């Protein structure tokens, strides 16, 4: 499968437009996880999403990442409404455009670190071992996840996302299960990934300190965006205290 098989308009690659998206749950759709939410994300941005528990942060990431369907509205990536994609192309979108990082790493327990990364390798992109080198874990390549610490596992997860050079990187509480020092390392890694400003990185977190290093900070409450601040001069990762 090659990238160009997805018929995206190259002129627009880089921006994601979430238009009037709603996501309801329950029989009578009484739970509004996302409520007519509109949002545009631009390449090169490091976006942090904050919000109370249950406000809809994960749901937003899921619909952008193609993991979940929307109840209403559209999500536009490079000129294509991804909510309307047939299954096969939808999977291709996830495989080639989106990278995911989870709070609990979600590595395959019976694959070694290297194999976990190889799983996401795409032809013409980075090699798995290089991705592992980038996160500093080349010497643990043959370890199984159970033989790695939480932080190391998350680094493998990052390598797994990194290896396919995604246009959008979605991270749901990537530091949630880690201590502050390790968490900082992880955030640093994520930021380093975007040195070339060719990705959209979205990080959902409960830790408002992380927001200080972001280019843009969104606050969500009850499925709606209540604040959207672009920080012209984000702090350096070294200067914050997680």
């Amino acid at each position: 499968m090659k990238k160009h098989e997805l018929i995206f308009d190259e002129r627009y690659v880089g921006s994601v437009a979430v238009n009037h998206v709603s996501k309801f749950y329950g029989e009578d759709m009484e739970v509004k996880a996302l409520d007519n939410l509109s949002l545009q994300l631009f390449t090169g941005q490091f976006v942090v999403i904050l919000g109370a528990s249950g406000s809809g942060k994960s749901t937003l990431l899921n619909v952008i990442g193609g993991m979940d369907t929307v109840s209403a509205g559209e999500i536009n990536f490079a000129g294509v409404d991804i909510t309307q994609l047939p299954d096969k192309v939808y999977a291709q979108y996830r495989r080639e455009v989106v990278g995911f990082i989870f709070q609990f790493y979600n590595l395959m327990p019976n694959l070694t670190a290297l194999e976990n990364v190889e799983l996401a390798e795409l032809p013409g992109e980075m090699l798995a071992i290089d991705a592992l080198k980038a996160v500093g874990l080349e010497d643990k390549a043959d370890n199984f996840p159970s033989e790695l610490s939480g932080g190391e596992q998350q680094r493998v997860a990052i390598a797994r996302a990194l290896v396919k050079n995604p246009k959008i990187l979605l991270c749901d509480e990537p530091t949630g299960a880690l201590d502050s020092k390790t968490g900082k390392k992880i955030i640093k890694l994520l930021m380093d990934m975007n040195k070339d400003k060719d990705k959209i990185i979205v990080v959902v977190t409960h830790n408002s300190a992380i927001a200080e290093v972001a280019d843009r900070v969104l606050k969500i409450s009850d499925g709606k965006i209540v604040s959207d601040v672009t920080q012209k001069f984000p702090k350096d990762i070294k200067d914050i205290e997680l």
Partner: protein
Amino acid sequence: MNKVLKKLRSRNIKGNIKQFLSVIFIVLLATMLFSGFMTNSHTLNSSIDNYFEKTNLADLWVHTDKVTEEDEKFLIDNDIEFNKRFYFEAVAEIKSLKITNAVKVYVCKAEISEPYSGICNPYIESGKASAGYGCLLDKNVAKNNDIRAGLESILFSCTFDVNGEPLTLDFEERLTGTMSLDECADSYATWSLVIEEEMFLSHIKEKLMKVDGVDYENFEIPYNQLLIKTDDVQKTKELLKDYYLNESTESELLYLFGRESIESVKLLTQEVRQSRKMIYVFPIIFLIVAVLIILTTIDQLIIQERKRIGILKCAGVPNKKILKHYSKYGSSLCFFGSVVGTILGVLLIPEIMFSRYGAIYSIPEEYVKLQIPVWWLVLMVVTMVVLGYVVSLSRCYSILNKNPIECLKYDQLGSSRKLKKKNKNKYFKKLPISLKMAIRNIQIKPLRTVMATIGITGCVALLVAGFGIGDTLSKSVSNDYGRLFKYDVSTTYNTENFKEKLAEDERISYVEDYSKVFVELEFGEKRQDIYLYSIQKDSKISKIKLQTGDVCISKSTAKSLGVGIGDEINIRVAEKEQKLKITKLVETTILNGLYVCDDYDFADEFVSRGVFIKCDSDASDVAEFVNNINGTNTAKTMKEERANIEERIMSTSAMTTTIKIFAVLLAVVVLLNLVFLIVKERNIELATLKVMGLDSWQVSISVILEVSFMAAIGIILGLFAGYPLMLWILAVNKIQIINYVSTISFLSFFASILIVLITIFAVLVVCYLRIRKINMAESLKRID
């Protein structure tokens, strides 16, 4: 706290409903088979006893040339309960329908109506009979030919000894009813007819009146059979033998035999024995798989529950309570499955089996007594419950022995170190990732692998055995009729000009003589009543090539007596004795016995003479022609003979269908359980793969590979296990008179593999659909 635990349990059951259903279902299958066969065996047993008791079946049959007053006095003096009967064979014709057939006629006392007081009473199915009135035809014959009692008449002739000369009289008797006679329940080809003796005697007298010089007033029925009831069969037998061998006894003994020599009784009692053994054949395989399924399911559950067990432990719930809580899963599932299975088995299996027995052995329906072996069934349910309890308890115990922190750890893969060592291999590293995943998963879950493999092995083995039994049966049938003997019609006769008459028909192209006699064979301590056949020297009909002096014995008879080539045996017909030396063995299915050459010096003693006939036109037409020749006993086509055995082995051949169905059910349950276990356990992994953009096929491939690997091993093992399993089933289902020539064709192996592959494919499709249905957002929420 107990309340909370109870809630926890009911929710767990809801959450793992598919695994639980498969536990219930496999337990159900096992217990259903067991309880069904058990009930069937008991019911069959009690029905047969009931039947024999109601019709007052004799213990001994005595065939003599005549029954004299002296004989009767001897019996009365010795306090032996008896009935006399006049028995003869004839060719009968149903008048209006113009159908003819060989018939066995029993002329006996009036006690053929209820309440029974005679011996060997016919069971009257329709119509009636009473003192001085009654002519009853076999109910199956009546049914098959649509003969209604009271409307039809039957024509036959009988030869009597009048003034020292044979005199043949023709009779026309009106059928007054239909019946079944338990002695003749197995005769498919020969009809049986029971005639009330007073009525018959008056008809004979009417006819004799017209013959000159006959004292018809004092004519008596020439009784030639004694039916004897006795508690000590062996003793009475000896007593009678001594009596008849005595020089001063006027009447001559032709045959003397007990129930064990009556084919239909033999069949029925064998069927009981066989049905009893059936109880153990299949349920064992199912039980093994059931235990494995319970083990793996509980295992799976407890792994899921590890964290919860850890939490419960940390929360200070005592070990005992936790153990009790989890062991209830196994026992309650087994309880439920075995109770439902028992009920279904009791209700369904005897019902299905009896619809067959009824037809084959003509046990009247009202004699069928459903007998439920309650205590056995209770014992079985208790065993299943204990089994489930012990299995889940032991699994839970091993988890509880770990410290709570270990339980709480997220890592599921305790055995990764074991994996690492094995996978250092550089060839392994080059394998595709999905294959690596599959191999490692198999390594991590040995128990589950064993379960699935045994399940598939069982399925393939059962299928191979099922098809193999089919092959064996058809080979066995054509072994005797087709391979060993190849003719169109055969018959026995007792008149001199029979062969001349036969030669008149142009359709008959070849006639060859043979003869057969029932002899007592003696070898060392062992003795057995068997047939002695005499075949022409250069027979064109038989494959058994015999030279003068050759004595050939059927393998099964040889085996049961323990004789081999070179051994000397003793045979006895009536009062004559002869020593023979075995020179050859032959494999037979039903034509078991001794074969000698027709110019053997013993051949003079043969009582029954017969012919094999080859013809150019339709065999059944020729058989009908032969039957119409005076003096023919029963002309049968080879096709009829074949049909005859086929019916005898019907219960075995019907079983093959059951085997195949249960084999497929077994595979389906095991595979579905496997697939659901895997999908459930790896839900998060599979969802993650999906999130990473692998399509459903790529996500499924490792699971499919894993299942296929187990299936492949299972198929290979099953192919090897199939033949021994078949032999075992055949051995269990052995009927004494039939010796199976076991064989399996290549096609059977092929068909078994094909059926399993189709089943596996269907399950893999289900697996694929399940994986496709995985909701990424939901699965990754990680509730535990």
